């Protein structure tokens, strides 16, 4: 950082705030169109192919905590994502006794360093839910508008799967899927007899090469640690770094954006940010500003972008900025499979996620809740790491000797050691991930009393689940029990009931939050138009999940990528036409 930009601002065609799925895709498309681009990222850069950045293939004994999670890496010491639910000096608050947990990743690639690479297209129904069940709103665009972009994303990034011909689970350009693991076949037996479909999962890992620049999957099950062969998708390795290599792209790391600057006409002129390195304020100028900082962070920047021309922040006059915040629902259940105790050993690592899953299979018209969920499955002989060998005070009783007598819970000694070896790889489970109803009353706003360590006002959340989500979670629990029991598993723990909202995860915990800058044709009920262009600032665009009108039961990343590509094409077109 060689300049105090307040005096000599650098000027770009486009400034992109954030380098995750949305910002990463925009950086690639816009720079390939010949535009000069600044990517402003709140965290640092890293490259998993460099050994100093590599956590992949490291055994737990290379970590003094044996891979246990930390505040900054809650998903484990080797997890690639840096940040977590609770970042030092970057607080957020909640109101009215409600809960929302906000997961952030401060690094190039953002939260694409964390996610499970589950890469599902939204289907035709997912854009038109209000027309189907009368709740929430339809998107101003439909599947047909996004399909060409989903196709391009498939081919650019790579996703394995199978063509199924299910109307609301559109097929794409799939790489060959890996064969199932053993616990997945047991679960399938249970699902089959319950009439619940299970199909090959759709994950963005390269089982075959899509080009000569990225390697293929070598089946270590550690996508969450970032792949040194670039065989899985993260925005850093697949979008931002290639864009920097090929185009006019400058990457500003450790740069925390305070606000979008605007002129007297209300047009965006650039951004003002704090460098975390020297704690000084800098400004960058551009013709276009693209926000891809994550749904809540982009909304926060817009709220904080108050000026003479935007006294309520950009998008603030819509009355819906920060509103309609919604996350996917989540609930889980676990069991132990007696048939898998004493199982034969072989390398079962596979890809970094499930090899089979269940798409939503029922008709909500016949149910007491409006929206569906998909089911993710887990289990198998994963790497023994922090946690392995624990819980024998309650689990040991499931192990039986040759005469069928159960081991006593707890204990010590050679017998305990043997039992831990015997039980290894025999537990399994599933997680439902469902669609919630977007509601005006769930929102984030600026907390008037709290700033972060950069002096930037922070977000305050207000979020509750409605009966819709609670009833859906109840249905999940019934389904999980049916599948596990049919599969021959013994259920572990007690079935979550109404006292825990049927095990429904707290809002934010599934890390699929969307909707805070939602799109629409009416500037009074939406923040951006159908091209993700701010209604009240035509050279400001949002490319993260903020513009989602509704979050389907699918993971949002593939739709963020497709939308960002579409928005970026629109930006190029509008610049060419000199409209912005």
């Amino acid at each position, binding site marked *: 950082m060689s300049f105090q930009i307040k005096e000599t601002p650098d000027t770009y065609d486009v400034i992109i705030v954030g380098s995750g799925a949305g910002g990463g895709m925009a950086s690639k498309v816009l720079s390939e169109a010949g535009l000069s681009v600044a990517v402003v990222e709140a965290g640092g850069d890293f490259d998993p192919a460099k050994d*100093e950045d*590599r956590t992949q*293939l*490291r*055994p*737990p*004994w290379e*970590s*003094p*905590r*044996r*891979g*246990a999670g*930390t505040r*900054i890496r809650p998903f484990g010491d*080797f997890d690639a994502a*840096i940040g977590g639910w609770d970042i*030092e000096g970057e607080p957020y608050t909640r109101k009215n006794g409600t809960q929302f947990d906000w997961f952030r990743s401060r690094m190039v690639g953002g939260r694409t360093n964390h996610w499970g690479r589950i890469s599902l297209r939204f289907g035709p129904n997912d854009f038109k839910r209000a027309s189907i069940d009368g709740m929430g709103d339809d998107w101003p665009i439909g599947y047909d508008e996004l399909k060409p972009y989903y196709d391009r994303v*498939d*081919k650019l990034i790579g996703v394995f799967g*199978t063509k199924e011909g299910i109307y609301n689970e559109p097929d*794409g*350009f799939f*790489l*060959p*899927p*890996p*064969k199932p693991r053993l616990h997945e*076949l047991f679960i399938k037996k249970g699902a089959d007899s319950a009439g619940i479909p299970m199909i*090959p999962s759709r994950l963005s890992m390269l089982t*075959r*090469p*899509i*080009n*000569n620049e990225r390697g*293929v999957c*070598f*089946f*270590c099950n550690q996508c969450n640690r*970032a792949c040194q062969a670039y065989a899985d998708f993260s925005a850093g390795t697949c979008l931002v770094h290639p864009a920097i290599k090929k185009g006019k792209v400058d990457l500003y790391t450790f740069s925390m954006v305070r606000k979008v600057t605007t002129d007297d006409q209300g047009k965006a002129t650039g951004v003002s940010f704090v460098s975390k390195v020297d704690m000084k304020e800098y400004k960058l100028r551009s013709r276009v500003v693209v926000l891809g900082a994550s749904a809540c962070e982009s909304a926060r920047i817009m709220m904080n972008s108050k000026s003479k021309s935007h006294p309520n922040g950009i998008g603030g006059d819509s009355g819906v900025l920060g509103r309609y915040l919604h996350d996917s629902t989540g609930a889980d259940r676990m069991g132990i499979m007696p048939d898998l105790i004493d199982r034969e050993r072989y*390398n079962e*690592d596979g*890809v970094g996620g499930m090899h089979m899953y269940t798409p939503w299979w029922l008709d909500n018209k016949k149910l007491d809740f409006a929206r569906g969920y998909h089911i993710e499955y887990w289990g198998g*002989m994963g*790497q023994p*790491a922090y946690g*392995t*060998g624990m819980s*024998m*005070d309650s689990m040991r*009783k499931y192990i039986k000797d040759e005469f069928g007598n159960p081991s*006593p819970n*707890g*204990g*010590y000694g050679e017998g*305990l*050691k043997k039992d*831990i*070896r015997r039980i*290894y790889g025999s537990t399994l489970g599933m997680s439902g991930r469902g669609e919630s109803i977007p509601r005006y009353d769930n929102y984030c706003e600026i907390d008037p009393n709290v700033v972060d360590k950069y002096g930037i006002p922070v977000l305050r959340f207000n979020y509750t689940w409605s009966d819709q989500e609670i009833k859906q979670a109840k249905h999940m629990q019934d389904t999980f029990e049916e599948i596990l029991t049919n599969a021959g598993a013994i259920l572990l723990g007690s079935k979550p009931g109404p006292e825990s909202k049927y095990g429904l995860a707290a809002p934010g915990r599934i890390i699929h939050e969307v909707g805070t800058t939602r799109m629409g044709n009416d500037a009074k009920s939406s923040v951006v138009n159908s091209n993700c262009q701010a209604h009240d600032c035509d050279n400001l665009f949002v490319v993260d999940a903020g513009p989602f009108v509704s979050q389907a039961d699918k993971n949002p990343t593939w739709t963020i990528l497709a939308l960002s590509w579409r928005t970026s094409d629109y930006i190029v077109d509008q610049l060419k036409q000199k409209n912005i």
Partner: protein
Amino acid sequence: MTGCETEEKAVSGQIFEGGTPGGRTAEEKARDAKLLADSFFTEEERKKLDTLVDIIMPADSESPAATELKVTDFMDFMMLDQPGYQTPMRGGLMWLDFEADEKFGKPFNELSKNQVIEIVELVAWPDKADPAYEGGVRWFNLLRNLTCTGYFTTEAGWKYMGYKGNTPNVWDGIPQQVLDKHGLSNPEKYTAFYLKPEDRGKVVEWDDDGNIIG
């Protein structure tokens, strides 16, 4: 932290000098270095733990004892890394002296092997333990958890477990004899579509409908 202390902390084959390697932030490096230079347990507590971890995970014909795998050192680090463990762990270790004094009139570290086992037996079996020892049972559960996880996250622990992964390979499904043993088979519907290991080097090509043609 000095090189000498690093040496003491190191388990063979273990990289402990600066904490966890790989893409660490400056804050993470500093925190790991600080925790590794520090210690939580007193000498007396370490002695109690060394006795107990070898009772929980003793040597046998296939694998070493917990103390050989430095499980006490691991536990010491975890006390500092997750401070919530400190009070329950220290409380349990103190209770040992109370119980040893009640029963045998001397501190825990001076007990014979049989006397130690007598105390362990009071708290090692959660479903059978006298309710009066509820607190001790909870502590021993924690001790068992940390001992076992510290044991199975070492190279020797992996070897004993028979874990085969964490190495580049080609997944071509469950071995046939395992499928046969469990009477299961891959769904036939997908046989033609599953990844064929011989195709892993070939750049994929699709037709306009998304069918793989090369």
